[in-house]
């Protein structure tokens, strides 16, 4: 073809190359803007945490650390943070144990109604959290179990359990059962097989589902807001209630610390799982 119409072809090629360059530049800009849009609210929160004034103008007229010192003077936030960590850790722990056993049974068995049962186990994800929240409020009120961290922890177990079951079941599907059989043939008890053969193979699944559970529990507002009554507020609820009344950068200072905390938790998880699972998930 190029021999027949060399000039026309070259013109088309040149036009295509120009169009490709334009597309390339546009798509790179889109990606840059997308990342900027996603990060903007987090960056602005960090900037405002160092603001010298209480009102929100851009740019802030001066820099100061006054909101951090104000934050550290507020005892309710400290208690709420500790409570949230305890609740998230306990809920994640219970969900990991119950979820692992359940996922194992789901993956390694066949019985009628299994898919329906799996659907039931995953269904809390699609129920609006506020509906669950009111349900737990009435339920625990009827039981007379109010205040403290126990009702909130029990509620969070149900919120995070579906994520654990789903992720661990996906991890268990790919395992080579002959390794377990070999261990059993060599005299290992089922418990030893679980501990020394099965669990090490799904380590990254445990890390990812544990991390996700912790974050999801740590972020609960609607599901828990009726279970708190001031003295046992969790951190997001303490922040939510503070924000309904005041909007000074104290919340920005706290948010900046939480962003730092999230980054640290993520780094720790990346180190433990050596990043392989996350990289496989995100980078392909």
């Amino acid at each position: 073809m190029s021999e027949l119409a060399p000039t026309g072809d070259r013109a088309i090629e040149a036009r295509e190359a120009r169009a490709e360059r334009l597309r390339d530049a546009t798509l790179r800009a889109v990606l840059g803007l997308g990342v900027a849009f996603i990060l903007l609210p987090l960056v602005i929160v960090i900037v405002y945490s160092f603001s010298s004034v209480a009102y929100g103008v851009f740019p802030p007229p001066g820099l100061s650390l006054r909101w951090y010192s104000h934050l550290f003077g507020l005892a309710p936030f400290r208690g709420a943070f500790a409570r949230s960590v305890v609740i998230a850790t306990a809920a994640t722990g219970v969900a990991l144990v119950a979820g692992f056993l359940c996922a194992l049974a789901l993956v390694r068995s066949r019985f009628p109604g299994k898919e329906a049962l799996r659907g039931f186990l995953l269904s809390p994800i699609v129920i609006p959290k506020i509906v669950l929240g009111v349900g737990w409020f009435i339920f625990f009120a009827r039981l007379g179990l109010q205040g403290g961290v126990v009702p909130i922890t029990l509620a969070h177990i149900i919120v995070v359990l579906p994520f654990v079951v789903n992720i661990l079941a996906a991890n268990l599907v790919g395992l080579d059962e002959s390794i377990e059989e070999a261990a059993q043939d060599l005299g290992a008890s089922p418990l030893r097989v679980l501990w020394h053969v099965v669990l090490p193979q799904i380590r990254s699944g445990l890390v990812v589902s544990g991390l996700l559970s912790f974050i999801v529990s740590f972020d609960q507002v609607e599901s828990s807001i009726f279970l708190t009554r001031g003295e046992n507020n969790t951190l997001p609820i303490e922040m939510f209630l503070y924000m309904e009344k005041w909007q000074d950068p104290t919340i920005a200072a706290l948010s900046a610390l939480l962003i730092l905390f999230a980054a640290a938790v993520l780094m720790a998880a990346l180190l433990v799982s050596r990043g392989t699972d996350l990289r496989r998930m995100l980078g392909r």
Partner: protein
Amino acid sequence: MKLRGAAIVGLMAPALALMAVLYVVPLGVYFVNSFHEFRDGRILPAWTLQTYVKYFTDPFSYRVIGTSLRLSLMVTALAVLIGYPVAYALHTRVHRPAARAAIALLLFSPLLVSVVVRTYGWLILLASGGLVNTTLRGLGLIQEPISLLFNMRGVVISLTHILLPFAIFPIYSVMGRLDLSLKEAARDLGAGWRETFLHVTLPLTMPGIVAGALICFTLALSAFVTPQLLGGGRVQVLPLAVYNSTVEINWPGGAVAGLTLLVISIAAVWALNGLLRRLPTV
């Protein structure tokens, strides 16, 4: 290890016991309340459908349902319209796995931070002296600051940002499974970029779009923190109605509003899942 009868039951027992006691019973107790009536500041013990009748004959209920649907549809459309090009750009323009993972991690990083924090970020950004208004004025696009807070606009912008990762992720992962040879075949047969995109890439990535829309729609429908903090009382959606009824000890009214929310969520999941099954799989 293959499992048999008793072992299966034993392994599932803890999870199923938790689900029965802490999930089925509380939801049951909640819905039972919808068959009672709230009058003169207390819940009457008699069984009745009166709360349903009252709810569905009140025009205010329909305004709330309408606001909820409008908000969820707008946010879902925006999240997909913004999320698709971003996922496409990441898929086609970034080739090193480490760079891909890093950018993907940045795009999903807001999910690690509380929704209260993200909403607070928008509260600062959208204020009349905030970054958005200052920038628009600097560009000469507006003369007076536009009000972006305590109305529908602010809630839509903030919620779109909050749900964007949920739109990007399914689209991006479907693109990863895309058969590149189909694209090349289209190109070899003389199709330009536009034809290839419209007739090959877009139809094949439709499952990702529908899956993303499904997650965004249901999450937008049940969003509570953002409409409450940024809506300024002017964005009355179903979750706020449930919250307000419960605060007023009107459990029956809250239960009916909650059931309405639940039914709409399930209907959306069912409809979009049906659509998903009819699409060609990659």
